[in-house]
């Protein structure tokens, strides 16, 4: 059976090639878009988590993608927050999305930030002390070739780089809160607070107290961030679902078309197989195996193309986080092959049901 399948591939190399590439396209679509989406999400969640603190405090209508929020929380809330029993410290952060560079800049309050955070490590320099000083992470430093003492431009203002910290905490670039508030036109306002619980007090208790006290605010446990982000980020789910659907549809239609035209062209061949005593299931298997093979080749090519595409993206946008979990790799493969098998089912059954005498060209 294998020889028959392979000889058919070679007989129609263009169609085989196009089918493989189409399935590959579906796979690349899933891997690249999911990879970038999840990458962004995981990265944001992880870096947010590493700011420290146990809770994230936001206005009730806020999104967890900070880029979408402006500064609306009064900084004064800090005192109220810190009065809640079990709260050790709270630090306000103003987030501003730099669309042209596709990353966030955080305005942080030096003093309270250090109370909450414990992960920030400087490879060079230290946290800022002056209004127009900034700190950048190692990724930013490398990709923009910025060192301590250099000047960088943020939102039309010049900042002197005071320190370079190990990437993985907060945003790529951080400046003093007050300075960013002023530039942003939101004095005394913050996007969110990070709250650290007191050692020895059960997190659950503090969480409950915060929620009772601030009913109209959104309070998120930082440990749950990634999951909540994935489920609450606007259109994220719909986007992933759409991409998945599209990829299945591509595989399905391409294989349906390829196999349908194949069996139409090979009517006589199917008649011959039947005259030799090939059963229905033999013919169904023949068509399905052929499709699975095309799809498997498509998936393989898709993984290779995905790798190349990501290399290309990372070469141009080194800070772009990418995360493709094993789940999604398996899912992309299953979707590509599954869609193809579904597409092959109808032609396969049609072929198996053909009248052998007619297929042999009698009449």
């Amino acid at each position: 059976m294998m020889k028959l399948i392979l000889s058919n591939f070679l007989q129609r190399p263009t169609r085989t090639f196009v089918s493989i590439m189409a399935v590959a396209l579906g796979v690349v679509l899933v891997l690249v878009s999911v990879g970038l989406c999840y990458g962004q999400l995981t990265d944001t969640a992880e870096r947010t988590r590493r700011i420290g603190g146990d809770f994230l405090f936001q206005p009730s209508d806020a999104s967890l993608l900070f880029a979408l929020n402006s500064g609306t929380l009064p900084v004064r809330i800090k005192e109220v927050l810190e009065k809640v029993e079990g709260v050790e410290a709270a630090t306000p952060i103003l987030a501003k999305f730099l669309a042209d560079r596709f990353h966030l800049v955080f305005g942080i309050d030096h003093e309270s930030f250090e109370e909450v955070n414990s992960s920030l490590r400087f490879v060079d320099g230290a946290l800022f002390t002056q209004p127009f000083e900034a700190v950048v992470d190692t990724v930013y430093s490398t990709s923009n070739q910025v060192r301590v003492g250099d000047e960088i431009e943020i939102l039309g203002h010049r900042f002197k780089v005071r320190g370079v910290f190990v990437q993985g905490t907060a945003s790529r670039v951080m400046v003093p809160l007050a300075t960013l508030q002023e530039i942003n036109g939101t004095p005394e306002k913050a996007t969110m607070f990070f709250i650290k619980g007191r050692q020895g007090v059960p997190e659950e208790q503090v969480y409950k107290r915060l929620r009772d006290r601030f009913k109209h605010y959104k309070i998120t446990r930082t440990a749950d961030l990634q999951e909540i982000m994935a489920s609450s980020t606007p259109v994220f789910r719909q986007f992933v679902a759409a991409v998945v659907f599209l990829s299945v549809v591509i595989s399905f239609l391409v294989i349906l078309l390829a196999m349908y035209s194949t069996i139409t062209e090979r009517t006589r061949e199917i008649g011959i197989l039947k005259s030799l005593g090939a059963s229905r299931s033999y013919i169904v298997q023949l068509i399905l195996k052929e499709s699975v093979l095309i799809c498997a080749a498509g998936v393989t090519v898709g993984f290779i193309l995905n790798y190349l595409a990501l290399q290309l993206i990372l070469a141009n946008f080194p800070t772009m986080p990418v995360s493709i979990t094993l789940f999604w790799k398996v899912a992309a493969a299953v979707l590509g092959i599954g869609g193809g098998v579904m597409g092959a089912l109808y032609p396969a059954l049609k072929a198996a049901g053909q009248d052998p005498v007619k297929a042999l060209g009698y009449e």
Partner: protein
Amino acid sequence: MNNRIELAQRKDAVVVENLQMVYRVGKVDVPALRGVEITVKQGEFVAVMGPSGCGKSTLLHLLGGLLRPTSGRIFVDGIEISAVNDTERTRIRREKIGFVFQRFNLLPTLNARDNIELARRIHGNGYRNGSGLAVDEVLRLLRLEDKMRHKPAELSGGEQQRLSIARAVINKPALLLADEPTGSLDSDNSLLVLQMLQELNIRYGQTIIMITHDLEAASTASRIVEMRDGRILNRVQNLVYAREQGLF
């Protein structure tokens, strides 16, 4: 006479009783067979003759289980194939029947050897089965041993037909059915193909039913039957026919 007694003692390869076949084309019934009766003994080589449209191919397709009869009974190698379902008929075809067609019907993408090998695999349900004949032996018998790697398109018509015969007999079928096997061949190649069928019949005792237009081809068979209008002529009718044809 001796021969006849010996033949009568042999088992039946094919028994056909009152076989009717009506094709339905739209709302019109087209009767193709109107009560065919025939018995073929094991080891016989029967030629079926008759004018175009008299139902020869229909009979062959029914014998090979490619069609289901409207009524009547067909036994092949003792099994009533007219009484079984589609799956079972397919199995019987796989195990007991070998087809040879006028248009060869080889798989164009496979070479000679693989065409034969495929028939073996289908016979063995996907596995190479040990029973049938050796591929090399059959290729040698049909003088195709140096054409093993050739695709059908690279073979002459005569070679293609010999290949299709090789494919048909590779699994030692109880019954070889040939529908005008020399219909698309020139006389030299026809002769070669007929000689080979005869050799298979004599040397291996292969039971053969062959449809042909050509009286010369029919004369290689051990028995000739004549069909007219969906019936097989009886012996008296046959005699009349033979006289008409100047055989006596």
